């Protein structure tokens, strides 16, 4: 059972970690979120992206510097930095869409990226970063389902940028945008499947 909590609301029972404020042994929510009783956690509904190690991100090359270093726009207040060094063979141009992993966040709040991969063609969409876990689904089920039913390649960046390329990009994008707005509804995977199947069968 999940219920919506607002800042300052007392949480019945305990919470494992994050998004709470403890005073006199009682826990209060600090963000607008969903309280998950079974998981004992608060899932944020809005807010900024908080980078974690080894997360996949998608960004756009903003600036190319010396020694194969790049500034990447991650659509966040944190700037992405890609330091490849002169011995690397990879080379990017300004405006390229890049998929990479988060290596670390340095003292200047820059996100240092590694393992870059160029994404050719396709469409880039931006959604709220808090809704990304829902777009991926449990064990990536939701993302797999969208990619199979629309025959699209998807790269979902945890920073809120999603890259789509393939046969039915329009349908894939409308499904993703619907997940963004309806993320708090339960049983969404089934509902999105229904939407995708209905739309693909109508066309063929």
């Amino acid at each position, binding site marked *: 059972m999940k219920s*919506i909590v*607002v*800042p*300052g*609301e007392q949480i019945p029972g305990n919470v494992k970690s994050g*998004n709470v*404020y403890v*005073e006199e042994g009682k826990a*209060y929510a*600090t*963000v*607008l979120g969903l309280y998950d009783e079974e998981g004992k956690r608060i899932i*944020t*509904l*809005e*807010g*900024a992206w908080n980078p974690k190690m080894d997360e996949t991100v998608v960004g756009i090359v903003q600036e190319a510097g010396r020694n194969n270093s790049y500034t990447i726009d991650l659509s966040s*207040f944190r700037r992405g930095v890609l330091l490849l060094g002169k011995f690397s063979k990879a080379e990017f141009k300004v405006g390229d869409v890049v998929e990479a992993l988060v290596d670390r966040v340095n003292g*200047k*709040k820059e996100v240092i990226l590694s393992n870059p991969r160029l994404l050719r063609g396709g469409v880039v969409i931006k959604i709220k970063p*808090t809704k990304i876990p829902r777009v991926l689904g449990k064990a990536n089920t939701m993302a797999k389902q969208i990619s199979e039913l629309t025959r699209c390649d998807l790269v979902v960046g945890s920073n809120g940028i999603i890259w789509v390329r393939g046969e039915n990009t329009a349908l894939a994008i409308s499904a993703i945008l619907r997940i963004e*707005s*309806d993320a*708090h*509804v339960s049983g969404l995977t089934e*509902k999105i499947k229904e939407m995708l199947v209905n739309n693909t069968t109508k066309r063929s």
Partner: protein
Amino acid sequence: MASKANKPELIVGGKRLDGRAFDELRPIKIEAGVLKNADGSAYIEQGNNKILAAVYGPKEVFPKHDADPTKAIIRCKYSMAPFSSLEGHGRSGPNRRAIEISKVIREAFENVVLLEEFPNNEIDIFIEILQGDGGTRAAGLTAASVALASAGIPMKDLIYAVSAGKIGEEVVLDFNMIEDNYSDADMPIAIAPRNNEVLLLQMDGSLTKQQFEKAVDLVIGAGKKISAIQKDALREVYAKIERKYENKE
């Protein structure tokens, strides 16, 4: 303008000019998430007040020398639209009054927002009075609080503000414009409802100790209603989408 000479009768037959009881709020309506481009937003109607609040951030501070490496900074801009009220408010940019209100609202929020989570960043709060009818700083703060929550900014509490004051010897809650102009004392108070911490308190005029205590009691009593409306506004954004599915099935 307000003066003792042309003071109207503000209490007639035990009721106020708009028919309210002494401890009665004006009707309040709050809507969250009204602006698509902002990270968080809210719209409030409190009586004839119509106020929009928008929140942007956390984002990088510019100019950079204003940044604090230990915590985020809050910037708040309260402004009255040129068409917002009968007097000449807002016609020549920010005035002394607007700058003062921006400052006190900012300081109220600095106590509840968890600034340490976003070092070197800023959170912008914009409060735009579309139509003013007394008590706009309090209503603006109430709306800004909802806007901050809808932007997902971590806070200790969802704060509210409302004014109380004195007409003659009667302690009265939530002044409108005419009561504000001719009242004997006016005191806007912002409160964090979790532990009733006072975050903003200003006063024009004078109150005795008993009257002051009564005014604070009225504010805290009315605050329960305001808090409930604020929470409902935030929940409504998501409930609306859930209802869409229920109707389909």
